[in-house]
């Protein structure tokens, strides 16, 4: 089963690398959209069916945590799995993110295998 993925990162280069890494990792990728911040991501979520969101934390206009809060307020996206892909490893911010329901966390730099393993686990758990 292929999954529709939304990649949210203010770095266009990083979005392309994440997309490429997901593709070569063996994860079954369906449609893939990119957004440069949380606001743009919310607009894409309104227009398309998204199975999984990969998001950075530190972004202009609306950061990753605020985007997740907005998603959880919206009945349509309360259960959509979110995975953080970020440079930050701060315990308090991660605790805050887990409290908002993120399903996992990958710190940049990353290996393709770590992305594949986490995304596969997250989607398996989602279907259970």
């Amino acid at each position: 089963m292929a999954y529709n993925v939304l990649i949210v990162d203010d770095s266009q280069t990083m979005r392309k690398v994440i997309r490429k890494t997901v593709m070569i990792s063996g994860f079954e990728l369906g449609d893939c959209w990119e957004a440069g911040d949380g606001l743009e991501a919310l607009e894409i979520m309104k227009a398309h069916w998204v199975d999984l969101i990969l998001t950075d934390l530190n972004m202009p206009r609306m950061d990753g945590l605020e985007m997740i809060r907005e998603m959880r307020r919206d009945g349509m996206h309360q259960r959509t799995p979110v995975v953080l892909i970020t440079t930050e490893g701060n315990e308090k911010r991660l605790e805050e993110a887990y409290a908002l329901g993120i399903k996992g966390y990958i710190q940049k730099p990353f290996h393709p295998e770590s992305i594949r393993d986490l995304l596969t686990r997250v989607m398996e758990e989602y279907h259970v």
Partner: protein
Amino acid sequence: MYEDIRQAAIAVSSRIFETMFFVFLEPIDPSQEDPPRTGSFVKDPPGPLFSASILRGEIGFTGRYGGTLGVYLPLEMAQSMAKDFLGVDQGEVLLSQILDMVGELSNMICGNLFSTLDSKTIYHLTLPKASKMSGQEMDRAPERTGLVIDFSADDQRLRVVIQLES
């Protein structure tokens, strides 16, 4: 304090370059340079060291420590890294993409550095920015003060500068 930061910055930078760019950094031992230019709190290291076009990525941080972190690398090296990073031919890589990658590089080093040094303190990072400068400009830049760590890779020199606010 500076030695802890220096050691962590060397480890983090090396890991990021290796994992994301397949570039292997060799820290330059300041004791092997005469006069010493890097490796401790250098007030005014002598130049010039960089003659080619340089790309600078910079990010600010606040937390237990506050300041800025800058990454400097030769344009040719950044072009080659961006080509591998994006999986495109060198001619297709735009300067805007290379600058974006260099800004993200400073973001990765800074985020990893402070989560390595102190994972319990929240550090707020600014949005990274990147610019192109000449080697001469770099030698005149205020970044000549601070914790300066030089590396060699593929016969080229690159630099990480951490400036802490007092």
